[in-house]
């Protein structure tokens, strides 16, 4: 089956600066993908390339098996919500939906009518709250029954309740359409509730990618008294090492069970795992750099 999104050696340069470089990734069908990474990591660039708004400087990107620049017809099956959910402020909610119905070749009127958007149809877009505007933009993206939904920082400016309502609408849409979803967010807490797949970008490259459950299963936190570090059975690499007083805390990738009783072994949460991969520069001098898995494509 063709993956909904596939990039090979993808790069985008702006003047002399690479916004995205050597990016190779495949997003599996039906996944809800968290596109994580600090600001300026290349998340928006990747989404803009996928939405056919930018042309690659090198490499290639395929959306539903097609090149979005050469075959823009594929975009009829892609729902894209740009940062800040731009909409016409003077339209009412109903007019906005009608406009979307007329301008999209694929449109499912009943789907949109049944969506739990909780919006009054006569309200002007300019009078909507940030959360309501985000839900309207999402309803428009879902209305075309897309096979792929791309969302760029949809939680920016939303309070926690509005964020939760947005997720409910999105997940209801996923249950209804079985679309693949990519959500770019620099706040991991906003997406960890829903994503089953993670792509972590740092400095314009893929730092970590894979199935969330497999990633959490293959990493552990080890805590124990500070001591010189030798090989630990079951540990394939150390992602992060922290000392505090006489305590040593490691975040490790494992390739087997860790039974060494001198360590307390704990599972790691997604947020902590991604933060550890985002900040390898905190590695102490004493640990050889090659212990770090520098790049891993899932």
């Amino acid at each position, binding site marked *: 089956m063709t993956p909904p999104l596939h990039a090979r050696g993808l790069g985008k340069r702006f003047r002399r600066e690479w916004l995205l470089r050597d990016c190779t990734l495949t997003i599996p069908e039906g996944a809800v993908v968290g596109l994580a990474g600090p600001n300026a990591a290349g998340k928006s660039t990747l989404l803009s390339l996928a939405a056919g708004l930018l042309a690659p400087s090198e490499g290639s990107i395929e959306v539903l098996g097609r090149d979005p620049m050469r075959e823009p017809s594929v975009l009829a099956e892609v729902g894209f919500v740009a940062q800040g959910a731009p909409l016409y402020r003077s339209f009412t909610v109903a007019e906005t939906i009608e406009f979307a119905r007329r301008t999209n070749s694929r449109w499912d009127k009943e789907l949109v009518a049944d969506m739990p958007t909780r919006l009054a149809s006569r309200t002007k877009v300019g009078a909507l709250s940030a959360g309501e505007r985000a839900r309207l933009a999402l309803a428009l993206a879902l209305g075309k029954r897309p096979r792929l939904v791309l969302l760029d920082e949809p939680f920016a400016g939303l309070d926690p309740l509005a964020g939760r309502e947005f997720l*409910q609408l999105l*997940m209801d849409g996923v249950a209804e359409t079985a679309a693949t979803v990519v959500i770019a967010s620099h706040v991991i*807490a906003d997406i*960890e509730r829903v994503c*089953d797949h993670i792509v972590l970008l740092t400095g314009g490259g893929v730092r970590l990618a894979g199935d*969330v459950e497999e990633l*959490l299963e293959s990493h552990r936190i080890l805590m124990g008294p500070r001591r010189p570090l030798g090989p630990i059975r079951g540990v394939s690499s150390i992602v992060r090492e922290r000392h505090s007083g006489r305590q040593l805390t490691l975040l490790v990738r494992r390739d087997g*069970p860790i039974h060494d009783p001198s360590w*307390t072994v704990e*599972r790691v949460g997604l947020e902590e795992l991604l933060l550890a991969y985002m900040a390898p520069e905190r590695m102490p001098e004493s640990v050889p750099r090659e212990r770090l898995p520098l790049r891993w494509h899932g």
Partner: protein
Amino acid sequence: MIEFHLDPRSGVATYLQIVQQVKESLRLGTISVGDQLPTVREVVADLAINPNTVAKAYRDLEREGLVVARQGRGTFVASTLAPAASLLHYEALRVELERWLEAADRAGLDEESVRALISATLRETLARRVA
């Protein structure tokens, strides 16, 4: 009807939390054979989680023979996890554990120390069993 709740800080995968909560309810007898589990869309609407996660949890429960999915109607409890004997065991073990906790208290262990001791002992015991 069972209502799921999520603890995002637990470090336990969301689908496993659902599986565990169904099993817990089966063990405690709060749901039993024939009862319907909430539909995927109901859980999604309630918890704002990925429908794939709910489907995965239900598939796991089905594979274990605990629930059965009926096309277009929903997912129903197919067997129970609460034989009377195991509940009796629980009670005896609980009383023993209570006594042990009192002894720990008399020995001056605070809650944190008790937790640390229990989890370390559990870990070592499990490791010995595996070895």
